[in-house]
């Protein structure tokens, strides 16, 4: 890599760079060698950065008009919607932005699952990503509480009550979280504070996430280690910048569709009713992006075990680099894993669906089966598959299957070997 011996061309640039090597950093970021076969599933890192910045900017402007007080919060949100110039736009971008953020992060996570991006030497990138994901859920949950509608209030009540499942100290922790004996004004003000803080924590972790990424470099659809820089790489700028930019544009069309045409479809109508501590809405559901975990929580008939199962479902992801015993990264070369991957995708979608349905009868049964399969996938299938699966031979390089002139990797490899001999 060229970063270490980079010298700015201008005299002032050199003077500055000797004192603070920002230009070296900029040079590293533009020249950063990237695998040339990255497909569009790799553009979601950039899209997610865009989402984070969007949430911070719109959040900042909303905070100029929002009042974090139990008596005024609901009204101040309506004030933003009706009176503040472009308040409706900023709020709809912020509210739908949260959904877009999760849409992008789920694609990003499932891309990692398909191409084995979490495997050695990228475990730390993956774990930082999981921490970011957890913080995103915390931020989204607390953000949903701020409008102080019925779903805000009862969502906050249900989620904070999860902590009461902890033996002995649970009740004390819940009272501490609430700052009272129920969700009330002290809860709202602290949630607002934390909701404001978390995006900046995420921003810091994103820097670490990218830093850790730039040590081994990007994984790629073939999933093999490549030499950098080489025939297999292209510089980040302009190649990846343009590709990311185009994908971002497509993503923004979807984003704009929700903001301008169906701004409330992802929300819940009950949240336009002001919080009432005496009446629980008939059917409490979290936002769509939390539904799979909500389904897991409800599928366990015991309170403590339900909470444990739900948390494990998220935390198990952090152990994934060690649960997946296969040395082959990309599912392209793992015929069995590829099938289990799609079953897992279906399983999570089913969990999401039953999470939105009442927890009774057939739905409950489906939720239980799907929950069991979720854990089976990570705890049994993945560890076993690494030993039993017969994988397809890997190409020697990214260019190899292309320049080898054959779509069949095995043929290309044989050809390569004969050339070497």
């Amino acid at each position, binding site marked *: 890599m060229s970063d270490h011996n980079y010298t700015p061309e201008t005299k002032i640039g050199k003077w500055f760079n000797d004192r603070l090597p920002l230009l070296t950093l900029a040079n590293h970021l533009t020249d950063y060698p990237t695998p040339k076969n990255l497909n569009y599933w790799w553009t979601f890192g950039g899209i997610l950065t865009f989402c984070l910045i969007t949430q911070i900017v719109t959040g900042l402007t909303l905070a100029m008009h929002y009042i974090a007080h139990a008596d005024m919060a609901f009204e101040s949100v309506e004030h933003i919607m009706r009176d503040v110039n472009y308040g409706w736009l900023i709020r709809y971008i912020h509210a739908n932005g949260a959904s877009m953020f999760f849409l992008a992060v789920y694609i990003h996570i499932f891309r990692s699952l398909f191409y084995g991006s979490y495997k050695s030497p990228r475990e730390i990138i993956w774990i930082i990503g999981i921490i970011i994901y957890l913080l995103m859920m915390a931020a989204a949950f607390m953000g949903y509480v701020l409008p102080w509608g019925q779903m805000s209030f*009862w969502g906050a*009540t*249900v*989620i*904070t*009550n*999860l902590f*009461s499942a902890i033996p002995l100290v649970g009740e004390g922790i819940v*009272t*501490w*979280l*609430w*700052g*009272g*004996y*129920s*969700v*009330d004004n*002290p809860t709202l003000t*602290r949630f607002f504070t934390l909701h404001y803080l978390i995006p900046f924590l995420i921003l810091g972790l994103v820097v670490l996430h990218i830093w850790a990424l730039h040590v081994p470099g990007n994984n790629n659809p073939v999933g093999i280690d490549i030499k950098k820089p080489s025939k297999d790489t292209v510089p980040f700028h302009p190649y990846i910048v343009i590709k990311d930019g185009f994908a971002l544009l497509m993503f923004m069309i979807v984003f704009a569709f929700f903001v301008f045409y169906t701004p409330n479809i992802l929300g819940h109508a009950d949240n336009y009713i002001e919080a009432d*501590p*005496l*009446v*629980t*809405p*008939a*059917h*409490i559901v979290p936002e769509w992006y939390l539904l799979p975990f909500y389904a897991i929580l*409800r599928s*366990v*008939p*015991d*309170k*403590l075990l*339900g909470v444990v199962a739900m948390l494990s479902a998220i935390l198990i992801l952090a152990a994934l680099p060690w649960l997946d015993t296969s040395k082959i990264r990309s599912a392209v070369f793992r015929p069995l894993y590829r099938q289990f991957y799609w079953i897992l995708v279906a399983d999570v979608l089913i969990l999401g669906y039953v999470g939105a349905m*009442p*927890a*009774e009868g057939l739905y409950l049964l489906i939720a239980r089966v799907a929950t069991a399969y979720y854990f089976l996938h990570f705890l049994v299938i993945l560890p076993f598959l690494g030993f039993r699966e017969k994988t397809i031979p890997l190409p020697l390089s990214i260019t190899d299957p292309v320049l080898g002139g054959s779509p069949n990797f095995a043929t290309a490899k044989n050809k390569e070997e004969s050339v070497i001999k």
Partner: protein
Amino acid sequence: MAEKKTKRRDFLFTATYAVGAVGVGAVVWPMIDQMNPDASVKALASTEVDVSSMDPGKTITVLWRGKPVFIRRRTQEEIAEAKSVKMDELKDPEKDEERAKNPEWLVMLGVCTHLGCVPLDQKGDYNGWFCPCHGSHYDISGRIRKGPAPTNMEVPKYEFVNANTIKIG
């Protein structure tokens, strides 16, 4: 460094860490404790409710410490039903007599012990309460019978100030 003897410097390190830890703890605790219920929240400790206009078979809901409290004047059939339940049928065994000192009046926190929703009155498989959030069924004594809630609905501290007034808290 074959010989390991406690030196003056080791002692100084240990002592410094110990004092430092105490100092950090002394600063951290106020930061944590400030989140606990404050004096004004604790001051709202009790609520008095006039129940003179309640007929048997009626439930009212009042707010106490930000939480709903159910007050039900039970009918004779309901009292008989509540008393007839065998202890081994219950997930959280508690006699009706222990929950309602005056059997006609059931006073309890209207908070599902699962995740804190407000159960609905006169619903569910046991003609008591039913929590719509995650499907817990309570009987006419507010005891958990079916569903994910671990314990019976809590009975707060309360007393009859006079024949018509209940003081909760």
